[in-house]
């Protein structure tokens, strides 16, 4: 029997898997070490002790500027983007019941990309770059609504969502490419960096805005978390135990789209995180949504933080977009999944 801890007090009760809890604590420790490492490394290498001293006690002005104003906001943005994409993918995979489901495959990322590229080409000169995240979120939202409505036929089925998602995604990629071909070179370049996904040059306003978005979305997920598991049952069984499957699925889809949309809005179209991070998380902890969700959040955050760390340190003086290295790390794993898929 797996060791578990049961908490009961009045009307409150929970069962916690101790193995999962231990692994989560380990993953959290690893995450903190990665963060400390990422704050230490760069054009100027500092010792971790110096970084901690700078963060706790302040100190030398220019070093403090590097850590607090250049590296920390960028690191936090990378962590939040990775966490949100990974969580979004985990939810989608549970709704669709297909290990290949991810925000990339389902048109959400391509919707955001189309929104962002259209904005960069037609509105950014007029309105400035600050509304770019909004345009990307709008694109993601519209794509998701279109997919959901087109997939509706007396309720939605996971398979219809995937098929229509793939179709819409292809269409939106065509829109993106078409717009890029007819844009001036400078727009194409900035669009290209955005499409690869980058946290380059992040200042504090960006992680703050993204964290704000996530704070709005997360309570809904916390409320629905208990039901993620039951909606994975067949419709008949789930409805039989009293689950309103269609409402639940719509609610979870909304959470997933909002998470991916927000992440992509501030981090660009970073591919693969939403696909592979949830899979890694599922292999690291036992089944059970709450544990998997926390693990997926940590894995996603680490993946993008490490990718960005590689991008900005390994090829100095170049500073390459994090999206490239997520893809470099992700593609072999993706192929491995495809080849080893049981069904």
């Amino acid at each position, binding site marked *: 029997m797996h060791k578990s801890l049961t908490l009961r007090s009045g009307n409150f009760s929970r069962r916690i898997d101790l193995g999962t809890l231990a692994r989560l604590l380990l993953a959290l420790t690893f995450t903190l070490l990665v963060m400390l490492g990422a704050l230490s490394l760069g054009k100027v290498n500092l010792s971790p002790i110096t970084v901690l001293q700078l963060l706790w006690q302040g100190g030398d002005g220019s070093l403090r500027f590097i850590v607090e104003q250049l590296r920390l906001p960028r690191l936090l943005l990378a962590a939040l983007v990775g966490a949100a994409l990974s969580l979004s993918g985990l939810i989608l995979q549970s709704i669709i019941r297909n290990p290949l489901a991810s925000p990339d495959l389902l048109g959400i990322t391509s919707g955001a990309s189309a929104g962002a590229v259209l904005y960069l080409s037609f509105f950014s000169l007029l309105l400035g770059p600050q509304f770019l995240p909004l345009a990307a979120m709008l694109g993601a939202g519209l794509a998701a609504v279109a997919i959901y409505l087109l997939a509706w036929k007396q309720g939605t089925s996971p398979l219809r969502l995937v098929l229509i998602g793939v179709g819409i995604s292809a269409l939106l990629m065509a829109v993106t490419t078409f717009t890029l071909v007819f844009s001036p070179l400078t727009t194409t370049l900035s669009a290209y960096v955005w499409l690869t996904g980058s946290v380059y040059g992040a200042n504090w306003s960006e992680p703050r805005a993204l964290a704000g978005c996530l704070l709005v979305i997360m309570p809904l997920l916390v409320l629905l978390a208990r039901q993620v*598991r039951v909606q994975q049952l067949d419709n008949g069984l789930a409805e039989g135990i009293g689950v309103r499957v269609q409402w639940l699925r719509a609610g979870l889809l909304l959470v997933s789209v909002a998470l991916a949309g927000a992440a992509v809005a501030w981090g660009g179209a970073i591919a693969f995180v939403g696909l592979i991070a949830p899979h890694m998380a599922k292999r690291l902890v036992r*089944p059970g949504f709450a544990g998997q969700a926390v693990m997926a959040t940590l894995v996603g955050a680490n993946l993008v933080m490490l990718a960005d760390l590689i991008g900005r340190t390994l090829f100095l003086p170049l500073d390459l977009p994090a999206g490239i290295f997520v893809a470099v790390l992700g593609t072999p794993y993706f192929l491995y999944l495809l080849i080893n898929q049981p069904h």
Partner: protein
Amino acid sequence: MSSMSTRQLTLGYQRQVIIDALDLQLPAGKISVLIGSNGCGKSTLLKSLARLLKPQQGSVIINGADIQQRSTSAVARELAILPQMPSAPEGVTVRHLVALGRYPYQSWMQQWSKQDEAMVELALQQTGVQSLADRPVDALSGGQRQRVWIAMTLAQDTDIVLLDEPTTYLDLAHQIEVLDLLRELNRQQGKTIIMVLHDLNLACRYADHMVAVHQRTAFAQGKPSEILTEALVKQVFDLNCRIIADPFFGTPLCIPFGREVQQ
């Protein structure tokens, strides 16, 4: 003990009527079996008994109340349904799957009460799958898996259990094992069991009450020994046969004729 009945129940998809104005009485504390040819609507009927399909007209009634009027979780505490060939979430263990049966008793605050724990243990024990509790469901054999699904419906702690062809794809020994288990639950705990079965002879042996579904209604209902006749089999299944008394159990035994036997 809970009884179920339908009043002028009409079921269908879009324009197509599958069950037409059916009045049915399913006795409390008994095993009722629905029989009928493929596509006759018996599975559709079972779904509507479990409120998974909204009637076009009429109603399904448990203990005097229309199930469509009640909250879905209240109904889930009175009846459980096991659909045909369900699939389990990826990687889920037996114990966790059975625990999902406790869903209608739980809330955001209350997710693992003492009662939940006790009922899950009892369900594992009654179905004899305790030793498999920590195994993933996908790794089990067909017969074991079916017992696990039955354990989940037991954890739901309902008076009524509906099952759609619980013996499909099981070999004969495991079919008998599942049916014996269901009869034991019926006799020992007074659960009302309503199921769809294809095998007429097993249906006759295990059913207290039998309903033959044909031409959008109940062609006949009653004790198997009273209703299962050669004429019924000819009408409902379009099959020539001879019905004799089972030499061992005494229940009706249907010997189907193939083409080579002339009446």
